[in-house]
């Protein structure tokens, strides 16, 4: 039998993974959820037909979105994670004993249910006593919290579906208010390679750049995402992602990682010229409503 999962990365580019078994298929109130077993990537979770995570390359994303801010901010205690129902980010965060509270806001309870059942390894730390899960619209809950968090991690789906609200200026603005005066927000910023993705990345970078005093982009190589090339946004009120990196302190924690290292941390902020140009284009465009 010749069974493949395919995802269009653009209307003219298709990425396919051979499937051995289609384990789960269901429609929640928000999206289509599927789980596959595959020979190359192990178990795969897709939402609305887009790969969210695979057992094989999940560590890259989860480590890069978590350890980068954790190695910069000297004292992260309260963390808000948005999206991330698969539990991968929480799994990394719970390795830090200094963290005393992790609020997880996921709009779709069914994603968590499916991950607990089919990706138990990934979801294993969702039951940690510091983790508080709330099922609601992230825009709504963030509006209501102010100044309580040291770190916000935005682990959203792409900007063309139910996650659209997490790429808006109103969302970033309310995140800014929800952070302490030295807080950091990290988000997945999509891929800069294909045009539609690049434009979405530019739009949201511009919104973050005009909201936070410090806003930088860093990159990682993630095979199952569009172009295998992924970006993260580091937005911060006080700490600089490279100048304030405390490599010794982070290393002294003795956390074992497979992708992240303090050296790579610095390197990931060095970007290719085409991407630097794209970012400069929106950073220099400071058109705002004149009152």
């Amino acid at each position, binding site marked *: 039998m010749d069974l493949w999962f395919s995802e269009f990365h653009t209307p003219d580019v298709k990425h396919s993974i051979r499937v051995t078994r289609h384990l789960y298929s269901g429609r929640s109130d928000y999206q289509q959820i599927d789980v596959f077993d595959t020979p190359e990537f192990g178990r795969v979770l897709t939402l609305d037909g887009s790969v969210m995570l695979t057992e094989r390359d999940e560590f890259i994303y989860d480590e890069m979105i978590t350890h980068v801010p954790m190695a910069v901010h000297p004292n992260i205690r309260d963390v808000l994670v948005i999206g991330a129902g698969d539990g991968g980010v929480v799994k990394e965060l719970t390795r830090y004993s200094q963290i005393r509270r992790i609020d997880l806001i996921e709009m779709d309870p069914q994603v968590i249910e499916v991950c607990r059942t089919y990706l138990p390894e990934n979801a294993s730390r969702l039951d940690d006593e510091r983790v508080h899960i709330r099922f609601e*619209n992230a*825009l*709504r809950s*963030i*509006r*209501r919290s102010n100044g309580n968090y040291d770190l916000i991690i935005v682990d959203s789906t792409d900007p063309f579906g*139910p996650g*659209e*609200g997490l790429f*808006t*200026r*109103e*969302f970033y*603005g*309310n995140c*800014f*208010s929800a952070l302490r005066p030295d807080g950091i927000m990290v988000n997945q910023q999509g891929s800069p390679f294909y045009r539609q993705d690049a434009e979405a990345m530019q739009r949201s970078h511009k919104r973050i750049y005009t909201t936070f005093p410090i806003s930088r982009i860093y990159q990682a190589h993630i095979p199952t995402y569009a172009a295998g090339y992924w970006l993260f946004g580091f937005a911060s009120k006080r700490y600089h992602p490279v100048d304030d990196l405390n490599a010794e302190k982070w290393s002294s924690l003795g956390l074992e990682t497979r992708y992240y290292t303090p050296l790579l941390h610095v390197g990931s902020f060095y970007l290719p010229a085409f991407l630097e140009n794209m970012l400069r284009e929106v950073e220099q465009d400071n*058109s*705002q*409503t004149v*009152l």
Partner: protein
Amino acid sequence: MDRTNKPKLDQRRAPIYEALENFRQMRVVPFDVPGHKRGRGNPELTAFLGEQCVSVDVNSMKPLDNLSHPISVIREAEMLAADAFGASYAFLMVGGTTSAVQSMLLSSCKRGDEIILPRNVHRSVINALVLCGAVPVYVDPDVDRRLGISLGMCRRDVARAIREHPNAVAVLVNNPTYYGICSDLRAIVRMAHEAGMLCLVDEAHGTHFYFGDDMPVSAMAAGADMSAVSMHKSGGSLTQSSLLLIGPQMSVGYVRQIINLTQTTSASYLLMSSLDISRRNLALRGRTVFARVGEMAEYAREEINEIGGYYAFGKELVNGDSVFAFDTTKLSVHTRDIGLAGIEVYDILRDEYDIQIEFGEIGNILAYLSMGDRPQELERLVSALADIRRRYQRSSIGLLSQEYIDPEVVMSPQDAFYAPKRSVPLEKSVGEVCSEFVMCYPPGIPILAPGERITSQILDYIEYARSKGCSLTGPEDLAIENINIVIGGKK
């Protein structure tokens, strides 16, 4: 209750839509207009609008009836619409609600007749007076000073106008205003009828009143004689499609003659089928749909009021008279207390948050909610308002409140519009009689109408609205630096 209108016809039917579907199957060869011939002659247009759409952009013909003289499917569609809205007859309109308002006024008054109406009417009403030569008798609407908005008419003021102008032929009522405010329509209908006058209703913002529980009374249920209903607003049909409803006292044939004075002879089947399908949807599912819209608006009001600074007003405005009822599907927010004019919030929402709302004026914004809205977009709107407050909040000292300016009507709109006139710089026009319109669009309620005295208070208001970024429209001079005045009108 008497107003729960129970349709008697089979509202699952949509005769125009059905006829178009049949027509498509027949694959008739077109040697008639429109010249694009089912889109073949205009491939770019077809690619843009879709083949499905251009293939039903056809001309009137026997199987599809004719809007100017309906005898088959259009007539059936009109009767179904009348049945669904509880009217004696319903006319499908293809020239916007403007055409419905015009036909309503042209059917009821002629040159020199007096008509009683509030000043905060849409420009289409006063335009119709320019066309027919009737003379407006304005009832000052009540005003909410804190919000700076015009409310409905008080019963006592309508009664006085009727007493002082016993020869007036009609009373016109907004049901509701843009902000969702309703006068005591039943009482006004009764007063008008007792005085032998017609009651006409501009229901551009009240289509859903016919299909909701707990909604303000609709014009037909209140016994009004005619109503202009914007199906394309809350009814979900295509832009420019509308309905004119009439009660039992009006002659269907005469009203049709009036409509045909200005109506196209090539009415669009896209518009007519959209009316047909939307009417069916409203009749079958309207109650559920609008209950949901009402809940969303209520939710948004609570959330916005929780932000602080903003005031999203609702049912608490109801006072038994000039706010006899409030349409809770409307979402209006008073913004002056965060130090921003409504028009400024409107601009910021569009420029910085990619959110387009219906309008902003001096002290308020209005977001239009409808059957097409979803909770996730509402969350964006509320969050954007919270973020705007965080970024821009400032003292509201120096922000004007919108005052109702009591107009001095010197001559009828028609006389003023056609009078010998000249153009003068705006700042030199104090004391003159205006011969054209000036308004912010939207909401399109004239600041100055033809025949009204220009005062320095009005000019200050125009300058302030301009400085805050309102789009001014109306005058012949598009730059709105000059204004046409009636020669010899100065006091």
